[in-house]
């Protein structure tokens, strides 16, 4: 093939693109696999005695590595965040699409994008110096499951709203004119038609945000209180798996270190399960 052939007609470039994209895709998959392998290998000695890991006592100096309370706290704080963020996020999206003046909606949309790009540690710092003292004045000690839930909710809210906005707009474009032609009120149209139609796309978005909340470390570390226990109330301090890794990693050796790797392994498996769930629901549309 002579060099005068236009670039767009050279088939070997197609081959190159295909090879490059395949290479990148494979690398990403292999890295994930390697991380999983490494974590499994690093925590293997402890994985063989699962009974000691199910306890609630975390006393590394005496060899007790019960992860139960921390796993529970991770799940509870993330679920609390979803409970706070999902209804609020959906309502705001509906307001933006159906009721807000166009100019306001545009400014608000820009603000959401800005909020989504604020680093989570900033939310954590705000929680530490503003939210925790406020909660502490009401119900000491302040640093608590509730504080973690609120900070996480604030953190996941912007992206949740962006995703809900896309899903609701799409379902409004498809179904709203038809629904309104039947003469129903916009409230019924939203509740009976738009939300059910958008749900298959909302649900994966919610699961993705749950994954983010589960994995958040610094913001939670700053406001959750980090006491290893099952919380008796929303005002009790808790320690999540991620916070535990961040707090103790640089000081751990031997079995203690293995227990921390195991926490990482648990988080990774949880995240993979969530992603799989999101994928299954996403494919049902």
């Amino acid at each position: 093939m002579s060099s005068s052939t236009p670039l767009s007609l050279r088939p070997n470039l197609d081959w190159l693109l295909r090879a490059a994209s395949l290479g990148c895709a494979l690398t990403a998959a292999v890295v994930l696999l390697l991380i999983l392998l490494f974590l499994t290998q690093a925590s293997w000695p402890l994985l063989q005695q699962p009974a000691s890991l199910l306890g609630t006592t975390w006393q590394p100096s005496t060899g007790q590595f019960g992860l139960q309370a921390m796993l529970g706290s991770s799940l509870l704080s993330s679920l609390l965040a979803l409970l706070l963020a999902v209804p609020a996020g959906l309502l705001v999206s509906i307001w933006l699409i159906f009721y807000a003046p166009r100019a306001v909606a545009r400014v608000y949309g820009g603000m959401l994008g800005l909020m989504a790009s604020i680093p989570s540690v900033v939310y954590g710092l705000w929680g530490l110096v503003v939210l925790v003292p406020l909660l502490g004045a009401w119900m000491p000690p302040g640093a608590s499951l509730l504080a973690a839930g609120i900070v996480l909710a604030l953190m996941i809210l912007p992206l949740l709203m962006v995703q809900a906005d896309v899903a609701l707009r799409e379902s409004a474009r498809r179904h709203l004119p038809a629904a309104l032609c039947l003469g129903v009120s916009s409230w019924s149209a939203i509740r009976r038609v738009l939300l059910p139609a958008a749900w298959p796309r909302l649900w994966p978005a919610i699961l993705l945000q749950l994954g983010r909340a589960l994995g958040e470390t610094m913001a939670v570390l700053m406001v959750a209180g980090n006491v290893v226990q099952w919380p008796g109330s929303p005002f009790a301090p808790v320690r999540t798996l991620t916070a535990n890794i961040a707090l103790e990693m640089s000081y751990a050796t031997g079995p203690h270190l293995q227990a921390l790797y195991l926490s990482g392994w648990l988080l990774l498996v949880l995240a993979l399960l969530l992603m799989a769930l999101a994928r299954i629901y996403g494919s049902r549309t």
Partner: protein
Amino acid sequence: MISRNLIALACTTLLLSACAPQDKQTITVSGSSTIAPLMAEIGKRFEAQHPDVRVDVQAGGSSRGLQDARSGLAAIGMVSRSLNPDEQDLSPFIIAQDGIAMIVHASNPLDDISSEQVVALYSGRLSDWSDLGGAAGQVVKVHKAEGRSTLELFLKHFKLDNAEVHPDLVIGDNQQGIKSVAGNPHAIGYVSIGTAEYEVNLGAPIKLLALDGQPASTAALLAGQYPLQRELNLVVKGDPDANTQALLAFAQSSEVADLVEQHAFIPAP
């Protein structure tokens, strides 16, 4: 094509030969994670003055420092306490001092706390500020996370078992402790004296409590009156070689006093 390959080969050989070991002495330092960050910086400054020496600092706890210095795995061990009577086979070189202050919010009327009160608070026998002579309100106990040497000294000094302590808030580093206490009028915590004084000077609303009648300050620490304190030591076994001796002398000299203060310790007398 062949000539190009040859050039590439020659370049590779040159690059590889640059990796060959040189006549550089490596001094291995291992032990306390409290001293390690400071020692790493002292090592860097020492390397700048002695290009033929490399200082390798590894953190792993004071007991590992003792072990490695004894077994010869490390030329120098780092130990963040004074040596026990059964450790006299090693010679200590003190490089800095460190103390731990009990801190409360600046609005707290309390100025002084006794060891018994600290033990009663952290073991859960007392839980209200009115028991300590303050205004009524639940005490929020700030505690350190597992593995911190500050925690070890605190537990050892007050003879507490970590399993008995039921804190309300567990923190990682000194900064987080100071922010937590500064944001909560009911909180009590403990941090390194140097860090606490530094933050008070910057205007943080916290107060250092006197412990058993001894004011918590670097001055009192220097005078040796403050009880909750420790030495940061480098230890060696037998007679070290010339370069190791030079490093020990350097770590104790006034040339590194600014590094010691940066790490919120007090330079050795």
